[in-house]
């Protein structure tokens, strides 16, 4: 049996609209957040979970962490049904909601950690070892005695992550953990997650809008849209289908004008140079460069694949999300 098994998970929310003029009753619409979702995750996997806003990602996390009860379908995490055996289940999982806080606002974060130790009944020795391991990996030593409210966003997120891992969960749900973080913090967080996964075999389900997170961390990605699973597999396989265009930026010596380019190439002026968006299937890169060289003396030229966000946007468009 797989570590996580979800079968036919369905969850519907009722949304009440404001009463329109002349109508007696409020209109209610039912929104299907999840529409018979199936998937399995093996122990130790690092799975990325993406989809546009409102696709049902957070709902999945809330179902699997026992906060919500589904309208239909079943799920088992390590043999337990999260919403039925809630208290047993949650002892073994950790959750980070990127936009909320679990630590107390006014007291030093170490006190919040102590409280979590008592809530999860972690033996003192395990707690000490785990805490020193986590504070070192997340570089938290110097803030342990600082109240949460005095920490920066990046420091806070690291502290939140530490709090969610203190009881040594086998499964970690991360709901947009890198939201609002700067580049350094993001990289540090990714390194940490990789380490944690390698060292303790923690299974991780990562929800994010940051494709770099997925690319750096996840061997497998699931795409969700309108409550249904649209793709499940490796990220490169997903991107291949949409990764059809390349971008060349170049700058000439002096004022050289661009030559006439074949149809299918989109040109734009960018600063002192040009940006050309083309498809290698239509015009081979070497041929295009040769054409560009004919027009003048090229000072710089870079060729690069399309930004991963553009690919995902193209994919969402195609899937009509």
């Amino acid at each position, binding site marked *: 049996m797989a570590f996580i098994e979800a079968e036919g998970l369905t969850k519907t929310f009722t949304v009440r609209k404001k009463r329109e003029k002349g109508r007696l009753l409020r209109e209610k619409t039912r929104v299907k957040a999840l529409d018979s979702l199936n998937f399995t995750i093996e122990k130790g996997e690092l799975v990325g979970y993406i989809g546009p806003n409102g696709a049902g990602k957070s709902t999945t996390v809330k179902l699997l962490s026992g906060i*919500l009860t589904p309208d239909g379908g079943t799920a088992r995490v390590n043999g337990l049904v999260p919403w039925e055996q809630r208290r047993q289940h949650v002892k073994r999982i950790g*959750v980070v909601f990127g936009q*909320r806080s*679990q630590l107390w606002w*006014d*007291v030093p974060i170490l*006190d919040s950690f102590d409280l979590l130790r008592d809530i999860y009944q972690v033996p003192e020795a395990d707690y000490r070892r785990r805490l020193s391991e986590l504070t070192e990996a997340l570089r938290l030593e110097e803030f342990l005695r600082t109240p949460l409210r005095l920490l920066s966003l990046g420091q806070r997120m690291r502290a939140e992550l530490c709090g969610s891992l203190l009881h040594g969960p086998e499964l970690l749900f991360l709901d947009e953990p890198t939201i609002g973080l700067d580049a350094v913090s993001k990289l540090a967080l990714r390194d940490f997650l990789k380490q944690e996964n390698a060292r303790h075999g923690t299974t991780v389900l990562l929800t994010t809008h940051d494709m770099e997170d997925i690319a750096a961390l996840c061997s497998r990605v699931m795409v969700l849209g309108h409550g249904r699973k649209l793709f499940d597999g490796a990220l490169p396989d997903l991107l291949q289908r949409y990764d059809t265009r390349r971008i060349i930026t170049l700058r000439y010596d002096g004022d050289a004008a661009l030559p006439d380019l074949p149809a299918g190439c989109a040109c734009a002026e960018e600063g002192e140079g040009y940006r050309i968006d083309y498809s290698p299937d239509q015009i081979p890169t070497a041929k295009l460069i040769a054409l560009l060289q004919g027009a003048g003396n090229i000072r710089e030229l870079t060729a690069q694949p399309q930004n991963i966000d553009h690919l995902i946007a193209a994919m969402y468009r195609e899937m009509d999300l």
Partner: protein
Amino acid sequence: MNAYFTVFRMRWKMELQYRGAVIGGVVCQVFFGLILVSLYRALYASKPQTMPIEAVASYVWLQQAFFRMQLSSDSELMDKIRTGGIAYDLCRPLDLYGYYYVRILAQKLLGSLLRAAPMLVFAFLLPRGVGLGLPVSLPALAAFLMCLTAGLLCTCALENLTMAFTMRTLDSRGVQAMLNLLMMILSGNVLPLTLYPDSWQKVITLLPYAQVLDTPIRIYTGQYALADVPRALLIQLAWVLLLVWAGESMWRRHQKRLIIQGG
């Protein structure tokens, strides 16, 4: 069990961080105490009531000193429910009703102890008939403390019931304002319940609000004789049980049909 003690300890630290709020609260409550006592003295000067003025003054000071026990005060908990931060508490291996009950209890107990200690000292130093008098007897003092504890349990259960209600309505300000008003009037904070018409008192003293402070204070000032204590305590405990039961089942029901929106 340990987790509940830790909640207490953290709450204590938090209260100590806001020493300014404690001082502000004490000054405010002392001010109100002085105003109310002067008011009742003026009233008594023209038309004395059956209850002696010394007892009224004691009543007012005890009400003001333990003011923190009455109004709902855990705005952080409210915000958690409103903004969805409660999601974290829902994925803890804890009974939520119990966890929040202890949180509220810690806040009310520590918050009122910190404020009551300096205020009671101050009120004792005031002249007789203006300040706080001694309890009628030593056994009465013991009974007072016992009933005060029962009152504390009662007010916490009341507040936790409001929290359960907030789970449903999300915004609690309306309900809260109404309940606070009821609490102020029916607990004897604005006008001592002992000054209401006798026929009213028969009903009001049975309501949960009167259990919080009015009952213990009446024992302190001798309005309730020692022989009345068992009956009073029984009413208090009945309310505690009823409110805990109602709150717990409401929490359980709302937890089932909970929705956490956005993200």
